[in-house]
């Protein structure tokens, strides 16, 4: 019988209260919601799904699945990108979109598949506010993601309607669309039955409140009039995606001739000049080697939108615990608290959007 073997979830670190929202928006048309989760400027459905998926796969001790189901209430898919960020085969990803019960549908399908075909499924249900902030439809919407690994020997089953709709999740996360019901379901599970972190209450306590203005800023994605990209420096999409393994997963290259480890990737070995490599999944931890804080108005065009929305940011040269150094923006941190030697960990985030395509990759956050 197929069932749920492991779980993971991700709640964004920001939260807005109903009172603050009402004060700022002049309305809060969302019954039963006391506060709701707010994805940061560099987060979206895809990055939250990756974060939840990582936790679930680690808990399950797995590096591959037969099917990845990406479920969201929005119209944009993301399963292939999430699969690549998780090191899974993007050809095994499918999107279930456009409906708030996309998560439940996907989970039911996964259990069915695991039972009949003895296949392993990763179900990722993820949602973020994606409407018009001026509309009352926005009021209830919160962000969250949940991941469930369904496999043939899984113990826990899922039945539609087994979770009360007015749960703590709705009160404190908001209406997280496809993720809501499955996140509520998580709170009903017994730790002895599934692998993975179930302590939603602790994650809820860990969040930082934001004002309505900050909420709007993190939702805002608009370049000022007259902004033009790519005048003096340009990284084309093919060039960007050519380094996808490094950008999404921090995969370095080891020279097969002399053994030297390189990151970011390069064309020839610095030590011996060979051009033959094997991939190395680097540890995601490191320390700040050098840093600076980029003041308002001084960002490269790719990050102007972010800076206008959320202000100055810290960027650094990070020395990875495996040795190589790399330049990376820091996130989830007050820039003025950054110091040389600060331990940081890689997170997968949305970096910027160009030519209508969101570019994803690594940033580093304190841990």
């Amino acid at each position: 019988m197929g069932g749920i073997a492991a779980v993971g979830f991700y709640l964004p670190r920001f939260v807005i209260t109903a009172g603050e929202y009402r004060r700022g928006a002049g309305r809060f048309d969302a019954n039963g919601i006391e506060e709701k989760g707010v994805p940061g400027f560099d987060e979206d459905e895809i990055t939250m799904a990756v974060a939840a998926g990582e936790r679930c796969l680690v808990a399950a001790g797995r590096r591959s699945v037969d099917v990845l189901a990406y479920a969201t209430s929005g119209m944009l898919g993301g399963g292939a990108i999430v699969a690549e960020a998780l090191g899974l085969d993007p050809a095994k990803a499918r999107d279930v979109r456009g409906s708030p019960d996309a998560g439940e549908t996907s989970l039911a399908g996964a259990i069915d598949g695991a039972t009949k075909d003895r296949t392993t499924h990763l179900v990722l249900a993820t949602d973020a506010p994606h409407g018009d902030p001026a509309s009352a439809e926005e009021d209830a919407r919160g962000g969250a993601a949940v991941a469930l690994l369904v496999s043939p020997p899984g113990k826990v089953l899922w039945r539609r309607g087994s979770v009360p709709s007015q749960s703590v999740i709705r009160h404190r996360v908001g209406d997280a669309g496809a993720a809501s019901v499955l996140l509520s379901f998580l709170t009903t599970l017994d730790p002895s039955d599934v692998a993975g972190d179930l302590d939603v209450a602790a994650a809820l306590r860990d969040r930082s409140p934001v004002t309505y203005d900050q909420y709007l800023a993190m939702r805002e994605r608009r370049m000022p009039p007259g902004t033009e990209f790519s005048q003096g420096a340009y990284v084309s999409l093919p060039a960007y995606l050519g380094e996808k393994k490094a950008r999404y997963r921090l995969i370095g290259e080891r020279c097969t001739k002399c053994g030297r480890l390189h990151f970011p990737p390069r064309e020839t070995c610095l030590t011996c000049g060979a051009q033959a490599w094997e991939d190395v999944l680097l540890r995601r931890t490191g320390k700040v080697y050098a840093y600076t804080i980029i003041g308002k108005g001084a960002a490269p065009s790719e990050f102007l939108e972010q800076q206008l929305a959320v202000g100055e940011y810290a960027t650094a040269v990070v020395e990875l615990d495996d040795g190589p150094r790399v330049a990376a923006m820091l996130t989830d941190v007050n820039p003025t608290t950054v110091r040389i030697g600060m331990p940081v960990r890689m997170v997968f985030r949305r970096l910027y959007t160009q030519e209508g395509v969101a570019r994803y990759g690594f940033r580093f956050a304190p841990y």
Partner: protein
Amino acid sequence: MSRDVAVIGAGMSPFGDLGRTAKSLFAEAFSEALDSVDNGLDPGDVKEAYIGNMGFGGGQIGNLAALMTEHARMLHIPTRKVENACASSGYAFRDAYLAVKSGAVDVALAGGVEVMNDVPDVRKRFWLGVSGDTEWERLAGLTFPGVYAMMAVRHMHEFGTTREQMAAVAVKNHGNGARNPKAQFRKEITIEKALSSAIVAYPFTLYDCCGTTDGASCVILAAKNVVRTYTDAPVWVLGSGAASDHLAVHDRESLTRLEATARASRAAYAQAGITANDVDVAEVHDCFTIAEILAVEDLGFATKGEGGRLAAEGLTARDGKIPVNPSGGLKAKGHPLGATGAAQIHETFLQLRRGAGDRQVPNPENALTHNVGGSGATCAVHILGI
């Protein structure tokens, strides 16, 4: 065939926010260079031209050199643009030097030009920082000041260098710039003012950074066998060194040493047969205050870590032990990217011929120029003497 080479003429346009075209600035710099040749020189005597230019703002990116030489009375000359970011005309000078030294031509021109202030601000900022590594550094949100700011943070961490010491570099160079009629910024500043202006990239304030500048520079080089036709006071090129490094700073072993500077200067000193102690005046690449501190260390004027103290204690002042940037440097004279390297040669040409007016340093015999591309991916060092 290898011959001695001298600089026989040098000129530059004013540096600043000028509202003029590149061809107008270049023509002015060339005219001044011609006028500086003591016995006169026919533009037709120049047989090769090397024009440094980064291409800031777009404009005439392709075939710029032909446009410059055409408007400077050198129609039909073999010409080309040389691009190595902020080190473009340091390398243009090296190329012209090698052309003359090799025996290919007797007289060559090295120049540079950049117009940075003719674009609206919203467009201008997209051209800043295009000479760093775009695929990794830039996509980490780093800017050009940001990369040097990280070097400053490391220098502060490793050697205890202070923001006050960095500000002392700015104060000195603005003081020198105030005496240079062609400088962009001609006002003295105080440590307090430098420290209290707006933060651009921690730990840099506005005064740790050079401005955006329009300007052009030209230098005329001649082989020893023809030098006396043109002047009795040539400035000899005693050494030319150049080197490169990883483009991205994270690939470099150290953030507090520019390997390209160290290697380029080692080659130049070796060729000239002198050491850092023999240099009487230096024009170094101070695009940021920390850059001058790194330069005086990597060029051998100070031991590593002591560069900040050099400026703070006045050792790099005009009357100091080793005067650095008497022109005002990139900080105060201005930094029209492609024009900077040849403008440094222009300053040492004046200094060595005792023609630097109010900013003349006492009796220099050997001078050094140090021109860096971007955050240190390229560097050209020259030693000149009389």
